[in-house]
């Protein structure tokens, strides 16, 4: 979060970081207890978290349907410093800053193979020639298994598609991000005014970058359940992106069995929010050949040894979360 807060100054680029809060709604005593526990865990680690009751949520987001018959809103967990950023601007800002600092970014250049001699990485083959290197980092969201296969690795990853939708632009309505976990639905508002929302992944493996209608229907049902006013809006566009789902719902930032080859991937549907931390800890791993203290648990071999990360708490198969 602190990396996000300093990002615009660091990159000298307006990435539209907008810290208007992220709230997770709860609907029952059991969910409240779970969120209280999550909030306490966050605070122990020095992260802001505030458990709001129904009155608190009514003040924060008065437009929600509090009296839904199945999921009446009883409160929520608020992280006040969370929020939104413009994803294009984050990419542009990083690209420009990296270029300014001497990084070569080669566009329209596909990696076709990895050069490995005696278990040590020597470089990459591309459609525009060979690049020799002593260290290679794999950070290829949506294609981790394809690149892993080039190194002879079989990864604990399934690639699925996550759909999102944007409505026509309206006046400022939604503060920050609201998640309705019980209905598998989240929503925020872009600075242009469009409401951005989504929900479940399509549970089957796919690289197609387009989804199917049942999930769209499910997401829109979630929307209508928590914010009936959304029924008045038109969806302008909809898309799907490839997401690499790991077996425990947490990412992998680790060395691989190939010496000099490092892997960062399996961010499931939550990669964007971790962009600065992901890059920072991956750079640390590559530069020092040892994991950053914030990423020691994100090991590649944790599934074999039983040290899975229980952050998602939903089981050991990608289609469960």
């Amino acid at each position, binding site marked *: 979060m602190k990396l996000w807060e300093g990002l615009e100054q660091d990159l000298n680029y307006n990435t539209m970081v907008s810290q208007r809060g992220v709230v997770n709604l709860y609907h029952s005593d059991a969910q409240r207890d779970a969120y209280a526990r999550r909030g306490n865990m966050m605070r122990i680690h020095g992260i802001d978290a505030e458990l709001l009751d129904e009155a608190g949520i009514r003040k924060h987001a008065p437009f929600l349907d509090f009296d839904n018959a199945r999921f009446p809103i009883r409160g929520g967990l608020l992280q006040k410093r969370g929020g939104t950023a413009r994803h294009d601007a984050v990419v542009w800002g990083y690209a420009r800053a990296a270029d300014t600092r001497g990084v070569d970014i080669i566009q329209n250049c596909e990696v076709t193979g990895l050069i490995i001699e005696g278990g040590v990485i020597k470089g990459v083959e591309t459609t525009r020639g060979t690049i020799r290197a002593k260290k290679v980092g794999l950070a290829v969201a949506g294609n981790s298994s394809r690149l892993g296969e080039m190194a002879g690795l079989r990864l*604990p990853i399934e*690639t699925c598609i996550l759909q999102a939708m944007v409505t026509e632009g309206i006046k400022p309505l939604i503060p920050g991000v609201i998640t309705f976990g019980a209905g598998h639905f989240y929503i925020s508002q872009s600075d242009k005014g469009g409401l951005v929302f989504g929900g479940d992944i399509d549970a089957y*493996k796919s690289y197609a970058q387009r989804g199917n209608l049942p999930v769209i229907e499910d997401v829109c049902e979630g929307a209508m359940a928590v914010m009936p006013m959304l029924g008045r809006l038109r969806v302008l566009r909809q898309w799907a992106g490839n997401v690499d789902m790991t*077996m425990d719902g947490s990412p992998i930032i680790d060395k691989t069995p190939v010496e000099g080859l490092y892997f960062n991937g399996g961010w499931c549907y939550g990669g964007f929010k971790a962009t600065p931390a992901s890059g920072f800890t991956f750079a640390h791993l590559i530069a020092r050949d040892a994991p950053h203290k914030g990423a020691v648990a994100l090991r590649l071999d944790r599934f*074999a040894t039983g040290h899975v990360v229980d952050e998602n708490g939903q089981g050991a198969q990608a289609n469960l979360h």
Partner: protein
Amino acid sequence: MRISCPYCGERDAEEFSIQGEAAGPRPEGGGIEAFHAYVHLRANEYGPTKEYWYHANGCRRWLVVSRDTRDHSILGVELARR
């Protein structure tokens, strides 16, 4: 996406639920490495793949569906057998 069930004919994929890659029978006596590979590791093919699908809202039979992960086309369906 529509799947041609051998019993029910072509049906919407919404009637089915997916189990995952058709990885074959569990490895008996293969040791921890074999079990780790069976439970956690995936081929995650870019292109044709075989998966177990369950026709939950139909004949309730398990199927092996061959599907292309690049464009969702269904290449073949057969009944799952051990």
